[in-house]
């Protein structure tokens, strides 16, 4: 309590000093409207600084938090009441829609992750194929290759692919474009012509 009192006393003293200083700087040669503007400027400047200090004070911040908590509490209570009322009448409350929206978003993100994995796999396969073509090995089932060799070759490649897949981490952020889909851009009328 004493802190609050000293805080406000200090601020008011500062305010009064500034107003007195502004009054003492009054010049009788300046026309009254101009002098009035100067006095008003000094007054508003002092009040503005006072407001700034006050809004930074713990007292104001606590008061603001208290006000917000009360407002949020009232709003929440109202929402709960409305939800209960709608549920009682077999209706759909906004809470249900929000829950549905969250489910859809989770579904979307799971799909996105799965598609990223598939993209990684395709990327790996493409790289493997390019590598094989580059080495001149071609596809494994060439004429003259014994069945056992072929199987062991496939096994080796499958193992290598698996190892690579495990090591694979997308280096580049993947845009959501693939999942969200891009709407067909509107054509420029001038281009259409």
């Amino acid at each position, binding site marked *: 309590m004493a802190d609050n009192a000293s805080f406000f006393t200090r601020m008011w003293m500062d305010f009064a000093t500034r107003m007195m200083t502004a009054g003492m700087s009054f010049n009788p040669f300046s026309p009254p409207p101009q002098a009035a503007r100067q006095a*008003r400027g000094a007054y508003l400047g002092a009040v503005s600084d006072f407001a700034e200090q006050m809004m*930074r004070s713990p007292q104001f*911040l606590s008061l603001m938090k208290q006000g917000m908590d009360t407002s949020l509490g009232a*709003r929440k209570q109202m929402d709960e009441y409305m939800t209960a009322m709608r549920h009682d009448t077999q209706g759909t409350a906004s809470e249900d829609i929000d829950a549905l*929206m*969250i489910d859809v978003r989770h579904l979307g993100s799971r799909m996105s992750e799965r598609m990223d994995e598939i993209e990684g796999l395709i990327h790996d396969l493409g790289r493997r194929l390019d590598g094989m073509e580059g080495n001149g090995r071609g596809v494994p089932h060439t004429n003259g290759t014994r069945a056992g060799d072929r199987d062991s070759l496939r096994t080796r490649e499958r193992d290598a692919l698996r190892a690579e897949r495990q090591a694979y981490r997308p280096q580049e952020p993947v845009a959501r*474009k693939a999942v*969200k889909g891009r*709407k067909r851009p509107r054509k420029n009328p001038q281009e259409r012509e």
Partner: protein
Amino acid sequence: MADTGGATTKNIFLEWQQSLLDETAASFRRWGRFPYLWQQALKVQKGATPSEVVYEEDRLKLRRYIPRGPIRYRTPLVFVFALVNRPYILDLRPGRSVVSHFVDRGFDTYLIDWGEPSRADRHLTIDDYVNGYLSNVIDYVRERTDSSQANVLGYCMGGTLSSMFTALHQERVRNLILMAAGINFATEDGLLNLWCEPRYFDVDRFVDTYGNVPAEFLQTMFLMLKPLQNLVEKPITLVERMDDEDFVDDYLAMEGWLNDNIPVPGEVFREFVKYLYQKNLLVKNQMPVGRHIVDLRDITCPVLNLMAKKDDLVPCSQSLPFNSLVSSKDKKVMEVSAGHIGLAVGSKAQRELWPQACDWLAKRSEPLRRRARNK
């Protein structure tokens, strides 16, 4: 001596009398215009540069500004505005337009209008905006202009989003310009930083209760940053200059924009307050955006950081550290003595800052060598 003193006193008295008469006449003249203020407000034109919507996705609209002359640079310029308020402040009125500076200099200029989020958008996150919408827009613009990269200019919260995008997709950005962008939130110069402290503001409870952040809440917060200036000084200035038609037009356009607030998606607000205002993760290179972590050191392109010295929303101390956090070698800071909005539409910024910013970008953009592309 006495005569001289008497004459002086008489002169002063006459001057006082004259000034009072002048002031009274001026007051009548000003108040005489008051009944027409409403009509003038209805006539105020918003937007200086003709534009067309070239891309849409959900509520987002991408505007392309129609050039008055030939396009001179291959690299397109994309303006990224904040999710708070509407983006037409960047092209407010003739002589108060940031966009027109770049359009007139021959840049193929685009502006992202995020649109007004509905209740269904409350779950959109920063990831949706940065790696979703913004990424799609940049890709579309690159395809459209046949350019491998784009120049990005982000204003306020749009600057923060642009810096995240550039850090995650550096290969797609040629030059980055930030306008009053919040980067380092561990400063108490701005009142918002103080108000957002976890002990005073429970963002989780707020978003869980309200969903999207109401436009009125944001408007009140912004007004409270400078209550005397916003609620007392500005109306007084309007009354005093009501006979100046250009001033009144500017005032009405500006006030119209300031009161044209839109809600912010709840999850974006939650992430912004929690990760930036409360934990300051962007500066620590720990900012999560979806499955990625933003590391500002990944930014290597030329950077121009524009700041307003009297900005009460994003003080210079919030924007300035950006240049020391990126790996770019070509980086510059420009300051202007203006407020947060004055940085865009203020006379001084229009006269001095924006021509210099255009020069800076022009030097770092690839000129278009083939015949003028003016689709």
